[in-house]
């Protein structure tokens, strides 16, 4: 018998439909697709308001992932591609989305999406994605004024957290809670390289550290790394964290305490910011075209 290997890195895919609304009443229906390196999101907006979304793990190629994410939303809402007026693709796989009318960079889309999620007072966005980490400054209209990103190194990204979850055999969704279940905050492990952090984590375990203590040390390392990125362009309030890691309170709370700034709470799934921004851009493009 083949023993099933638990996939500790596996985060929860999610979907949502606003049941108070009916897309048949909407004048403009737009779709935003964000094909990231680790997750793919599809968001549907009705007249520039969030209506439904679906997040999945990115598969072997961008077109299939985009299709799957989109079909997930369609299955829940009864929408078909014919009902969509305009589709904008974003994320690293944005040029490979066959049904998209336009591709827009993820920086612009994240700015726009976070502006919607956190409200017009948001000025700094920390987007912690699967394989990159970005700091984005936006103005009151959600337009990007400055940004900085790390996409060369896994330290400070969701992928890095997955590696540690797998090593410790702790589900990635439990990491945040468990990182606070410790007597005293331990010193951080290496924040310069995930591979080194991994060997350090193994050494700490052998030394007799509890898994939770190692988790805390890794969450701290990741937070320190990300904060040094943020500090290069500064944090202007209000502040919001988006991307998958925003759901990890072990990292989010530590970032807040290092920066001395509280992050804006939102009810939205933090992973949809890019796709939401794309759907909102799509709405703007449609309404502009109709006016013209």
């Amino acid at each position: 018998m083949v023993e099933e290997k638990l996939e500790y890195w596996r985060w929860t895919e999610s979907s949502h439909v606003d049941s108070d609304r009916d897309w048949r009443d909407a004048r403009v229906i737009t779709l935003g697709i964000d094909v990231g390196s680790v997750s793919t999101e599809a968001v549907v907006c009705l007249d520039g308001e969030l209506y439904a979304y679906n997040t999945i793990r990115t598969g072997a190629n961008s077109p299939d992932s985009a299709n799957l994410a989109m079909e997930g939303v369609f299955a829940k809402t009864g929408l078909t591609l014919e009902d969509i007026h305009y589709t904008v693709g974003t994320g690293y796989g944005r040029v490979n989305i066959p049904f998209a009318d336009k591709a827009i960079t993820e920086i612009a889309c994240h700015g726009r999406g976070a502006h919607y999620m956190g409200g017009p007072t948001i000025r700094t966005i920390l987007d912690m994605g699967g394989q990159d980490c970005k700091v984005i400054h936006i103005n009151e209209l959600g337009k990007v004024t400055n940004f900085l990103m790390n996409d060369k190194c896994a330290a400070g990204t969701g992928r890095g957290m997955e590696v540690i979850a797998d090593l410790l055999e702790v589900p990635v969704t439990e990491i945040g809670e468990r990182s606070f279940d410790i007597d005293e905050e331990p010193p951080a492990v290496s924040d310069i390289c995930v591979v080194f952090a991994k060997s350090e984590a193994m050494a700490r375990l052998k030394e007799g550290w509890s898994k939770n203590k190692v988790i805390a040390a890794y969450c701290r390392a990741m937070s320190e790394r990300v904060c040094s990125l943020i500090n290069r362009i500064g944090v202007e309030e209000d502040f919001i964290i988006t991307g998958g890691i925003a759901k990890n309170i072990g990292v989010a709370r530590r970032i807040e305490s290092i920066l001395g700034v509280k992050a804006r709470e939102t009810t939205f799934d933090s992973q949809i910011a890019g796709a939401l921004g794309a759907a909102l851009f799509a709405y703007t493009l449609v309404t502009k075209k109709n006016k013209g």
Partner: protein
Amino acid sequence: MITAGIDVGNRNIKVVIMKEGKIASRLAGTAGFEQREVAFKLLASAMADAGVTRDEVAHITATGMGRNALDFADSQVTDVTAAARAAAYFFPGVTTIIEVGAEESRGIKTDGKGRVLDSAINEKCAAGSGSFTESMARALGMELDEFAQKSLESTVQIPMNAQCTVFAESEVVSLIHQSTEKKDIARAVHDAIASRVSSLVRRVKLEGEVALFGGMAYNPGFCKSLMDKLKVDHLKIPEQPEFADAIGAAIVASKRAA
């Protein structure tokens, strides 16, 4: 005179006993967590192999990143100096040394007689080190030896976009999905490490012949990629290249005991 050199590396601990300037015995073991205990046991076994007692050993010098853990050593020396001494021992006159270990790689420039003139080290990132090859071989489900050999058969150059080991692993997975041949992926991995390493060498400037130390010297696929990148037709590799720093430390020990 009898001396000992101990190299406490990231992955393995290496012990060398030298007798009148010749290697009397050498032994390696996994470093693990209890570096001091592992090193102590390895030293005892190496002394037994060489047929010497602790009292006969005039001086013990430790090197490697865990060298400070060895409280029983008489002195310490940096890895860079140890490598330079080893190069002068094996290949007098060779002034460019490359060392690629489990988690570190470095380029060293010497005067050819064991004195260090310049060095460049990558210790901030696992890309460009031995652990990179290991994780890539694992991603392909291949043994390390097979992975190294296969790379030599490749005639295609595929650039790797990812600089980070963790990201490269995902890139390898997508290459597998695109049905890229394993030999070509293996070569892409070795080319990527070689280009990282050669950028370190460029910082200290390549001159004349090049000595290669460290466990990666066992990997013919990597050696080929490195020679291509450095545009040299051969590399000077000592027997059991992972012991170079321990040998260098034992040489330093004999100077210090004298």
